Every structure is written in C-alpha cells, then in structure tokens.
C-alpha cells in the first residue's frame, strides 16, 4: 500500500523541481522553439553560470539568486555575440543542419572541459542562510532551498511572457518565429530581433544556473542529465509554446520525482528519455504545439 503522505510530498517537491526545469527549458524554448537555433549547449551554459555563481558566492556569502540576476546581462551579451557568429557562419550559408549542430556540440564540450580544467571535477555548491529551513503545509514540507528558486523562476517566466506580449521587440520575436520575411516588410530586421532573442535565451540559462546551484550541488558534467530533460520538456510542450513549456516542465518534474520516490533516484534520468521517445513517436507536435515535423 502506498503511503499518501509520501506521494503528496513527492508531488509537491516534483512541482517545485518542475519550476526549476521550467526556467532551464524556457531559454531553449525561445532559441530552439521560436528561433529554430538548436542550441544543445544550453544546459552546459546553465552549468557554466552555476559554477561562476558558486565561485562568486561561496567565499563572499552573496546570495546566488541575486548573483544570477546580476550575471544574466553578461550572459545575454555573450549569447547575442554567439548568435552573430552562428548566423554569419552557419545560418547564412544554410549549413545549420549538420555543421551548426556540430558547432553547438563542440561548444558544449569546450564549456564542460574548461570547467573541469578551471574548477576541477569536484562538485560545487553554495551555503545559503535559508538552505536548511523549510515551510510546513500540514504533513507536506516545502524546503526553502526548493521554494525560493521556484518562485524566482516563476517570476522570470512571467516577466518573459509579459515582455513577449506587450513590448514591440517582444512581439517581433514572436513574429520572427512565425514569418521572417513578413517581419521585414514591417521595418524590423529579423537578424537583429533574433540576436536579441538569442541573447535573452542565454541570459535565461544564467538565471536557471543560479536556481540550480541553490537546489543541488553542481559539477562540470551536470548538464548531461539536463540535456534529456530540457529537450523532452520543450518538445513535449510543442516547440515554441512558452506557457506550454511551463506546464510540460511541471508535469515532467512530478513524473520524475514520483518515479524517484517509487523506484529509487538512480532511475530518474531514464524518465526523461522514455518520455522524450514516447512524445517523438506518438505526438511529435507536443501537447500544445502545431505540427512541426
């Protein structure tokens, strides 16, 4: 007989974990889903941010979530520069399919190996004042180490959605996903818009990195498990649907956490992949997406 309290706890912490997956996937939903730039180095960039934040915060005691907001613009600028390179060398030549994928894969390896060379292969983490505290909701515990990053990621996602709906640039980003040429007639340069949007997606990776380092210790290769997770979430959502990405991430967090509770945490990486394959085989357009095959 299953213990209902155990399951309730697994579901609640799965939802909190889902918020982390949501912010980790949101950047990829923008770059892969909306801009059609398959940035498989996205999880590696997130882990890079985690390590930078850990290096900044562990000795000084500065809060990692605030630090993430501070370094996000730096990552954004780097991302914008990276997109310019990508556009110049791959998109314009029409070489995205193979050379572009290889480029991001090479970038992922270079980031990971650089982290190993600079920080060593050990795990890094940050001590926070709230790390050991927990809110109780009846028998269900809400550890602050999970709750605060979850709230931060929800706030950032809300800001992102508002920006995409309300601002001119934001709406142009949504437009570039639908029809690049039509955008030109409206007097907006699609390449400039894509540069802004890709920069934003990398900035989101930095914020996700800040959330990640609060939730769990990180090593140079932590990105590997996230590759399966974030791609599963983005595809499950239907490429480019941001509210769908949030829902898919929450569903995913719950499924993974309940699996870990029932069968042991060693099996949780397999959840991402099985789900990903199931989605690709059965419903490649995702839960909320239009056909994109």
């Amino acid at each position: 007989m299953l213990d209902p309290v155990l399951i309730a706890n697994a579901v609640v912490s799965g939802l909190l974990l889902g918020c982390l997956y949501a912010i980790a996937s949101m950047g990829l939903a923008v770059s892969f889903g909306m801009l059609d730039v398959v940035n498989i180095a996205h999880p590696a960039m997130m882990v890079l941010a985690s390590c930078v934040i850990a290096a900044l915060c562990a000795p000084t005691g500065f809060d990692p979530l605030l630090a993430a907001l501070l370094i996000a613009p730096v990552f954004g600028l780097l991302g914008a520069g990276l997109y310019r390179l990508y556009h110049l060398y791959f998109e314009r030549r029409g070489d995205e399919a193979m050379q572009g994928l290889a480029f991001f894969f090479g970038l992922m390896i270079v980031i990971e190996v650089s982290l190993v060379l600079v920080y060593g292969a050990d795990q890094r983490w940050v001590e926070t004042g709230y790390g050991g505290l927990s809110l109780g909701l009846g028998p269900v515990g809400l550890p602050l180490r999970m709750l605060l990053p979850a709230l931060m990621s929800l706030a950032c996602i809300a800001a992102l959605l508002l920006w995409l709906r309300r601002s001119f640039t934001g709406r142009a980003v949504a437009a570039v996903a639908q029809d690049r040429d039509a955008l030109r007639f409206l007097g907006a340069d699609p390449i400039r818009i894509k540069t802004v949007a890709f920069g934003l997606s990398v900035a989101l990776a930095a914020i996700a990195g800040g959330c990640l380092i609060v939730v769990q210790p990180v090593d140079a290769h932590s990105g590997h498990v996230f590759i399966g997770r974030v791609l599963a979430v983005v595809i499950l959502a239907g490429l480019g649907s941001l509210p769908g990405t949030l829902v898919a991430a929450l569903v995913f967090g719950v499924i993974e956490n309940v699996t870990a509770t029932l069968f042991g945490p060693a099996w949780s990486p397999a959840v991402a992949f099985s789900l990903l394959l199931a989605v690709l085989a059965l419903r490649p357009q995702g839960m909320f997406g239009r056909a994109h095959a």
Partner: protein
Amino acid sequence: MSRPLRLNVGLAAAGVALILILRLIDNDYAWYTGYVILQYVLLAVAWNILAGYSGYVNFGTAAFFAAGAYTTILLTKALNLDLLVCVLAAGLVSGALGLGMGWLTLRLRGVYFSIATLSLAVVLQTLVVNWPYAGGSSGAYTMRPQGYAVFGNYSEFLFVLMLVLALGGIAVAAGIERSRLGLGLATIRDDERAAAAAGVPTLRLKLIATAISGGMMGMAGAPLPYYASYLNPEAAFSLTHTINAMAMTLIGGTQGWVGPVIGATLLSTLQQGATVTISSAGNLLIVGGVLILFVMLAPKGILGLIRAWRGRGDTA
C-alpha cells in the same frame, strides 16, 4: 581490375603491410596505439555513413559503442563465448538499437533524431549502472587470454581484429557510396522532400543506413572489454567517443570514406601523443576547439581544402 575490386585489394594490401611493419617494431605499446587509431577510423567511417551520406547527425556514438562493449561483457559472463562471436553479436545488438531509434524518430525532421540519440547514451548508462549483473556503476573485469590461435601475443590479436573490422568498415562504406543505397541517401541529403516525391523510399534507406552505422559502432566497441581488461559505464559511455567520431569526420571531410579515415588517423595519432604530454581533459578541449574552427572556417574539411587548393592551381 574493376574499381571496387582494386579498392578491396588495396585495403587488404595496406592491412598486411601494417601488420608486417608493427611486427618489425614488435612493441606492445605499438599494438595498443594502432588499435585505438583503428577503432576511431571505424567509428568515424561508421558515423559518416549516416551523417555524410544522408545528412543526419548521430550524437549517440558513445551509446552504440558501449552497447557493443557491454554485449561482449554479458555474453562472456553468461555463456563464455568467444570474442569473435561477441563481435558479431555486438554488431547485431547495436544495429537493432539503431533500427529502433531510427524507426521512432527518423520520420521527423533530422534534428529530432539527433536529440533522441543524444539522450540515448544517458539512458543506456542509467540502465547499466542499475544492472548489477553487468557490473553496475563499479564496472566489470574481463580476463584476457595469453594468446589467441596463431597470434602469440593477445595485443597483436586485438590489433589484427580491429584492423580487419576497420578495413571491412571502409569496404562497406565505399560499397554503399557506389550502390543504389548511396545514391538514395545522397538525394535525401540534398533535398529529402524532393527525393520522397520522386519515389525514393527515404524512410527505408535511412533505417538501413542507421542500422549499418550503429552495427559498425557496436563492433568497434565489442573488443573494448578485452583491450581495457576493466570497463566501467563512465568510460564506456564517455562523450569522448561521440565528439571524436564527429570531429574526426568533419575535420577530414564528409563527402566520402576517405575524409573520416584521414581525420581519424590524423586526430587520433595526435591524441595518442597529446595524452602522454598533456592531460586527457586538455586533449578533449583541443578536439572541441578544432571541431569548432573546422565547421566554421572549413566546412568541407581537409578534403575540401585540398580540392580548393587544387582548383586554384588549375586556374592559375
């Protein structure tokens, strides 16, 4: 002699020459180094069958390779089968794995196949880590026999085995290039929609290519437990195999089997030297950096550079 026959005779002659040269050197380290270089030649040629001929990027080299290695471990442990039988079985297992992955994802845009293969390594590794019989996370030991048949030295036997596999792989790749399968794959690479409209059975051709490519990768991994004597999931599923196979092929050039052979020979020879002098992490950093530089600046690889240089010589 016809061209295919000439190629196969040439390959066999090159193989015999290599064995004779290494016999003259007669050094265990030479057999070891030769084995690793040939293993990467086979992996790169196999990777290129899918990527170069049909334009589909496989990020799961490590998964197919490790599936082959673990087939050997399991068959040796359960039935104590001979390594040669294990190699064939590994080819079947990894080929079937490729077929399954392809069947699930190859009907979609190419990038989905790449994504699925990328996580394949993570999941297979999870399976093996949770499987105590296969050694679990702590790994498995394989007893290496003293000698084998006519080979007094087991290192020499492993080298010759990998040599035969690599040359066989090249012969298969060259055969595919000339065959209807190769032509069909080329139409897929150039314009899949047009190919399908013209009646090319695109899905079937892609599935055949994935199965052959995966099977070859599995065979490349099958002797690994004997080569290393000890194998843990981390080493078997290391992304190093994936990045190397990709980088070697893209650096050499993807247009034919010559590119991956050149890239693999160059890069893995360099790596063998570099691992001795600098760390393996630094080694990987160089591979990643060189890969990025090549895809940006020389997208057609070394072969493309040579062709461009020759072309310029003609016009001048």
